[in-house]
């Protein structure tokens, strides 16, 4: 049976940058049924395409853009795509997700996924239009910022084109480089560096092919029910629409989980200044949504302070307010928003950027880095000037940026005595939830398939915000581990479907299940079976990481979280009790004591069939 008109375009585009050769492959129905699309499909294509042990920045590492069956449909918040590749930041697989309008456009152009292989000798961009693709020289845009690139290409090609591009940071293959479109970012894990290593500046896409679904009437009804569920939930109808992801900032600060001054504490004295409530009253001028989204968590900030006047930026969101704000001790929202803007222009991840600067500030405090080594920047905690100057230097790769642009792990390897302050998991800088104040997040960071990531096993909502009745943040028992697994599986489903994770604050996996059937015609029989698809994807990504040499000793956390008790807040005195949680996690996942899925697990999840 054809996958066309069942939520899929039915085709995968492969393009070899060296030879400029394109090939269109059919999407296999079996793979679609077992993995849906997005993260699942991308991980499969990565496993099959990348040779074992591939250097992430070598031509042999593929760069994969993937959509899912719900992309570009009426399913809530379905305007997304994901980028899958072997990460130069961590050496693990990496899927970075991004909103805007690019994902749906790719599907309207006739492709569920694009696999980019090899690398070009000269800078190029990829032009995709209604089932056809060609390479174009990137003259005039190479070296330019993401916004300039996007604007230039859309001006030349037509406004109907959607453009995903890298900035100068990606061109230099910095491991914190992301891929941006519509001022949104597939930020984490260095996807932009892989794109830069291939000398691929951008992808411009336009399409007018309709995306059909298996049962249009039923699908429309289920999409309405899903939208309605979002309308009837406080978080998705009020908190996120009004205050964006920053709606939780004060709550996270109260629970002592807002990382402050490079995770020295979980409470930021100036939290109120950087809260969603304050931003709503001061900087934000308009709520914006990605395609198909009624939550509209994005906010446009219009800066008014003298040096930043006239700047407009999408954000800052919670993670950015933590990384560039509390984690650097900075309470100046104009400076944070401007730094966010710089990150967008140069094409770099705001989380990693902020964490690098926080690390730098702590090394400066400890005397490990001097003002001279930082190109004259007085990197004091809380200095808006230092925040902007260091970000600028990273973006341009000059001065202090020569050192900083390579990320926390690389810096700690080069700077003797800095290791205790280097907060990363597998090389990826740690995001905005203090794990000592939420044990489940500690587990999530340690076992996540792409290193320090909060968006795999997101237990923080339950542990810190009381969603679904809440869970004790201090508990590290089997119940907590099961919670982490449930969240991770559900996340893997929506990441493969592909819809925004935030929908799960308002609706449940049931609503996703009820849309998937009329969309694809795949009948999974029960919501549980769909959740099991998430478990399949998680074990599949684990299999990739195992193949690349990761094992139990890598599923750990920085010593600060394991050995130094949190100094204040409700979780004062806590460390992360990681070992018992990791052990229980492996057992409940059906992985052996080294974190490798057992052959029975691979069989019961049908991964053996996928990988054969």
């Amino acid at each position, binding site marked *: 049976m054809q996958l066309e008109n069942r939520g899929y375009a039915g085709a995968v585009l492969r393009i070899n940058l060296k030879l400029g050769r394109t090939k269109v492959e059919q999407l296999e129905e079996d793979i679609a049924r077992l993995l849906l699309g997005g993260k699942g499909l991308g991980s499969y294509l990565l496993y099959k395409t990348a040779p074992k042990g591939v250097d992430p920045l070598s031509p042999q590492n593929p760069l994969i853009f993937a959509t899912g069956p719900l992309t570009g*449909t*009426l399913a809530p918040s379905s305007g997304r795509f994901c980028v899958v590749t072997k990460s130069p930041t961590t050496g693990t697989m990496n899927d970075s997700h991004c909103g805007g*309008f690019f994902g749906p456009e790719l599907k*309207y152009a006739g492709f569920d996924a694009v696999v980019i292989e090899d690398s070009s000798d000269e800078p190029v961009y990829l032009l995709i239009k209604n089932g056809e693709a060609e390479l174009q020289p990137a003259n005039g845009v190479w070296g330019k910022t993401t916004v300039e690139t996007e604007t230039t290409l859309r001006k030349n090609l037509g*406004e109907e084109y959607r453009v995903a591009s890298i900035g100068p940071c990606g061109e230099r293959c910095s491991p914190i480089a992301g891929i941006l479109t519509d*001022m949104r970012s597939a930020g984490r894990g260095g996807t932009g560096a892989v794109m830069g290593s291939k000398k691929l500046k951008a992808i411009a896409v336009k*399409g*007018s092919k*309709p995306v*059909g*679904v298996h049962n*249009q009437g039923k699908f*429309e009804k*289920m999409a309405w*029910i899903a*939208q*309605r*569920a979002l309308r*009837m939930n*406080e978080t998705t*109808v009020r908190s996120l629409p009004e205050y964006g992801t920053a709606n939780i900032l004060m*709550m996270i600060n109260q629970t002592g989980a807002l990382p402050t001054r490079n995770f020295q504490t979980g409470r930021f004295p100036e939290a109120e200044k950087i809260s969603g409530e304050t931003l709503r009253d001061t900087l934000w001028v*308009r*709520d*914006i*949504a*990605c395609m*198909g*989204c*009624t939550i*509209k968590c994005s906010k*446009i900030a*219009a800066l008014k302070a003298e040096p930043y006047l006239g700047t407009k930026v*999408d954000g800052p969101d919670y993670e950015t307010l933590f990384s560039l704000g509390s984690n650097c001790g900075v309470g100046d929202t104009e400076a944070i928003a401007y730094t966010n803007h710089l990150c967008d222009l140069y094409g770099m991840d705001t989380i990693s950027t902020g964490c690098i600067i926080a690390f730098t500030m702590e090394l400066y405090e400890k005397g490990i880095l001097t003002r001279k080594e930082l190109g004259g920047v007085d990197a004091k905690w809380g200095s808006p000037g230092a925040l902007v100057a260091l970000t600028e230097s990273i973006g341009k790769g000059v001065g202090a940026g020569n050192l900083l642009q390579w990320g926390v792990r690389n810096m700690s390897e080069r700077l003797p005595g800095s290791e205790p302050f280097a907060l990363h998991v597998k090389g990826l800088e740690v995001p905005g939830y203090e794990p000592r104040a939420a044990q489940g997040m500690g587990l999530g960071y340690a076992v996540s398939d792409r290193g320090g990531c909060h968006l795999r096993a997101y237990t923080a909502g*339950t542990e810190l*915000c*009381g*969603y*679904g*009745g*809440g*869970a004790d943040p201090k508990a590290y028992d089997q*119940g*907590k581990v*099961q*919670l982490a697994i*449930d969240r991770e599986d*559900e996340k893997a489903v929506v990441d493969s479907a592909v819809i925004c994770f935030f929908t*799960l604050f308002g*609706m*449940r*996996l*049931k*609503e*996703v299940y*009820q849309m998937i059937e009329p969309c694809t015609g795949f009948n999974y029989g029960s*919501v*549980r079976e*769909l*959740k099991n698809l998430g478990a399949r994807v998680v074990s599949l990504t684990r299999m990739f990481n195992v193949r690349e040499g990761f094992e139990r000793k890598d599923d750990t956390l920085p010593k600060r979280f394991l050995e130094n008790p949190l100094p204040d807040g409700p979780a004062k005195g806590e460390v992360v009790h990681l070992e018992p949680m990791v052990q229980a996690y492996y057992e409940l996942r059906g992985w052996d004591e080294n974190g490798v899925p057992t052959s029975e697990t691979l069989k019961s999840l049908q991964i053996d069939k996928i990988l054969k």
Partner: protein
Amino acid sequence: MSKILDPPDGRGVVVAADHGFMLGSIEGVEDLEGTLSRVVEGRPDAILLSPGQAARLNHLFRGRDAPALLVRADWTNAFRDKTYTLPARTVHRRAVAEARDAISLGASAIVTYYFMGHSDDEREAQNLRLMASFARQCDKMGLPLIVEPLPMGERVTGANFADLATAAVRIAAEAGADAIKAVYTGDVETFSSLVKAAGIPVLILGGAKAKTLRDALEIVDEALEAGAAGVVYGRQVLQASDPAQFVRSVRAIVHEGKTVLQVLNPVTGPVRLRVFPERCTRCRVCELICTSTHGQGFSPAAARLRVEFLGVDSYKPVTCTLCGQCIKACPTDALSFHPELHYVQLNPERCNGCMDCVQACPVKVVRFDEQRSLPIICDMCRGAPSCGLWCQPEAIVTERQKERKNDAA
């Protein structure tokens, strides 16, 4: 139970007003007596109160047409979420009144929670024990027991929620509940299984205030279709701008068998689309629902309207204004205003595919279907535009046409 569930149809409309007990003075219950006196005008079958308020406001329940009184017999901190001044860290539940207290207050039934899904099995057992002890008391005193089973705790997941809600309902029935106040699972199919599993009357609870009356009423309608015996609505009613009218609307569906559309009476017939540019969030749901409604799958490139992007913070929907320029431009009279509904209609047999209409459209919403060589023109969905219904920020609103422009027709 007959006091709560109207004997002729066995259905009930109950208003819950016990929120102050769990959350303090939230919106709608500040002046509880004032709000309830308005609620009573809408003639609910029963009202649920905490023991203290039941004693204080007892006068509201006197008289032949007065609602029945239900008394909340337990307390919990479970609903103190992150936005609450003092959020709950672990969930607790305690008995606060016995069956005989409720009887002396003149109650027709007591209402208690039952939570299922905690990671601590001991806590789950305590929950059951508490429910069972209420059931024994009620049995002895001959007082009906309404149980509100809720999936609650760390083990509740998106995947098991509906199953857990169904199991908890059945367990409550087995423990001796006479009726159930249940969370609506979100759709007819899963809720039907819940109602079947219960085997006793099931009333749905309202939860947080719905954004639109339509959503609230749709859910009532669907729940009844799934076999529910009525509703227990709290904040939906108490926070409504006109609580009496809200209760009357719900009664119309529950007791009078009216449809949502009959109650809402939406605009139909000759309509136009009014655009509020500043409300648009650029989600483009209007483009998606447009082609879906017209059976073309999802294809913004073929939508009969468009969202215009002017800058990072500037965008707006552009829709057919019914200006008639396309009709004037058409050399073959293939386009005309519909005689009754007054939208632009196309006679494909007359169309020669010249695209003059595409050129003539001053707002550029007439597109061209290359394959069929025909223009694609907004038909106002023949009187009930989907975009107006689906546009959540209400940037596109359906309005009745005020005057006809007959010059072009």
